[in-house]
């Protein structure tokens, strides 16, 4: 069960080998998390993340393999993760995502479809299963990784940003639908984070490390804010950026 400070004991991480997910898992284990179920596509990386969780204080870890390009795998992957967790799951983190290569993907129908499947359709299918299970236990939290790129979609990353925008808006509705069920959903909108996913990209303003994101996520879990921005400053930056006239917006973001 989650305690008064929003510290969970039992956690399922979908996309559990990503750098951000690992940074968050470590911090959760250092607090109260004792059961960590990591789901992802790479067994080796998941095992590494699981060992790390044990080092940081978890007493039980397990892994589940799935392929986010196969949207029919979502429900079974969630079911497996919940079964391995045992009787009660306090927190589900949805950190599945693929940045892709916009220039290459935008002219390739199969690649564009894959971007939608991994960043939107698979997560929505999985969240549907998660929602059912948490509502049945009348408690629990869902943390969904969106992106600042979802707030206003850029021309130079419209596949990733567009899929995340869909997920972001859908989750706002899902969060409202959960009121009164005992379950809650929070969105995380990080800026650019230095990870293996963004390796090689040029650094834009408000780029942070994974630990800073994890820190902000933990603060957000404690406060219960519906949207967690990282860094928090982005909330104010985007309050302006999202309303810029289109020509100005294009100049600012796609230099």
């Amino acid at each position, binding site marked *: 069960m989650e305690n*008064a400070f929003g510290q969970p004991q039992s956690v399922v991480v979908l996309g559990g080998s990503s750098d951000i997910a690992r940074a968050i898992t470590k911090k959760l284990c250092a607090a109260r998390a004792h059961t960590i179920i990591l789901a992802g596509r790479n067994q080796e990386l998941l095992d590494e993340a699981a060992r790390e969780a044990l080092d940081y204080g978890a007493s039980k870890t397990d892994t589940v393999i799935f392929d986010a390009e196969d949207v029919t795998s979502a429900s079974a992957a969630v079911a497996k993760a919940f079964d391995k967790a045992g009787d009660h799951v306090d927190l589900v983190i949805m950190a599945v995502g693929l940045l892709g290569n916009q220039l290459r993907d935008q002219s390739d129908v199969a690649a564009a479809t894959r971007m939608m499947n991994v960043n939107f359709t698979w997560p929505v299918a999985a969240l549907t299963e998660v929602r059912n299970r948490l509502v049945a236990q009348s408690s629990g939290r869902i943390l969904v990784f969106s992106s600042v790129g979802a707030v206003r979609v850029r021309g130079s990353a419209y596949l990733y940003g567009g899929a995340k925008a869909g997920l972001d808006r859908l989750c706002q509705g899902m969060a409202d639908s959960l009121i009164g069920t005992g379950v809650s959903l929070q969105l995380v909108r990080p800026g650019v984070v230095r990870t293996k996913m963004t390796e090689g990209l040029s650094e834009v303003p408000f780029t942070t490390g994974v630990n800073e994101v994890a820190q902000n996520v933990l*603060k957000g879990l404690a406060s219960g804010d519906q949207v967690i921005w990282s860094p928090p400053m982005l909330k104010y930056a985007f309050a302006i950026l999202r309303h810029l006239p289109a020509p100005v917006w294009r100049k600012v973001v796609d230099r």
Partner: protein
Amino acid sequence: MTRERLYGWGRTAPSISEVLSPTSEDMVAQELAHATSVIARGLGRSYGDAAQLSGGLVLTNRSLGGIGSIAPDGVVIVGAGVSIDELLAITIPLGWFMPVTPGTRQVTIGGAVAADVHGKNHHRDGSLGDHVLEMRLVTPTGTFNVSPTMDPQLFWATIGGMGLTGVVTTVTLRLLKIQTDKVLVDTTRYSHLDDVMAAMIASDDDYRYSVAWVDCMTKGASMGRAILTRAEHATRRDITGDSLVAPKSAHLRVPFNAPRGLLNPVTIRTFNEIWFRRAPKRREGEEQSLGAFFHPLDGVSDWNRLYGRRGFVQHQFAVGDAQSETVVRAIERLSSSGVPSFLAVLKRFGPANHGVLSFPIPGWTLALDLPIGPLALPGVLDDLDEMVIEAGGRVYLAKDSRLNPEAVRVMYPRLPEFLDIKNRIDPQHKLASDLARRLHLVGK
């Protein structure tokens, strides 16, 4: 049956449960037979998640009422859902008082037994369990009369057992004879923690009631300044008039959650300062009503809303007599962390009873009210846990909302014994609460 969002008095970590208010023992037994997970709830005054059960069934005991006639020796049978407030309204005019009362009258007798509550007289009279003669207990495997001689194992597992051994329906307890509705209070102000602790060790035994309020927000020379109040029931010889009137119910209320940040280091420091300066340096024999002395916060209902939407945690620990240094270190840790805390309550505990999970151990106990918010708070309390464990002490489960299960196993070494007894009367592990799940008290 209704679906309700429940939380404890600290208003943290709410969860949704089915809530039902059984009107008879048979109905309780039926529900226990059919439910998959169930816990009893009284007036919701435990601070954390002890009386809620997400996705399960919560049986409120308020319809299990009834107060029997009081025998000449003060023995009375009370329905578990009767509040101390309701009981005192009947008994005080007849010259009887609760043998032990916590800081509020707004708790049910059943809840008070489950938490084995203590009061300002623990050093003399022990906790409530010491004054319970017998109970009716409905468990998943049957309904039993339990007492220190009838199934003493189950009796002492239920005293302080956080409701995890079943639903108490009636309690037989022995009341305390009083001659008036007043207490005579001696108040002394101390500017150092060491002085007040020395005074409590030296002369608490001279008083039935004793408690100190400690300021945990001052640093340096005045760290841990305190106000010590000690009292005795006034007899007819002590005062003019022999009125026996029960305390009145609250006439003030907090109608909505206070805005975030109302209670911050500045306002709390100011409150503590006023509280401290208002107290006399020394005053003896002041006449106070029972309500004013025992239940000062009952004058304002819903005062927990002052802590705002995010609520607060209460933290109470106990350590042995030889570990008074731990109390000092804990207050130092708090005052240096800058985490705001209202006046803390410091008191001495007498001998422990046989309650398997009962909180009091002889020595010291310190209770703190801490608003949720400061990022340092979870870590500071984890540090206090470490100090308390090192000192062989423990944290009070009725107030807890953030302990970890490993710490509880060390703090309550008789936990395996408790789980054995629970397993005997609840082999299917139906009796559970959010607290029990969080601290691994359900049994496996």
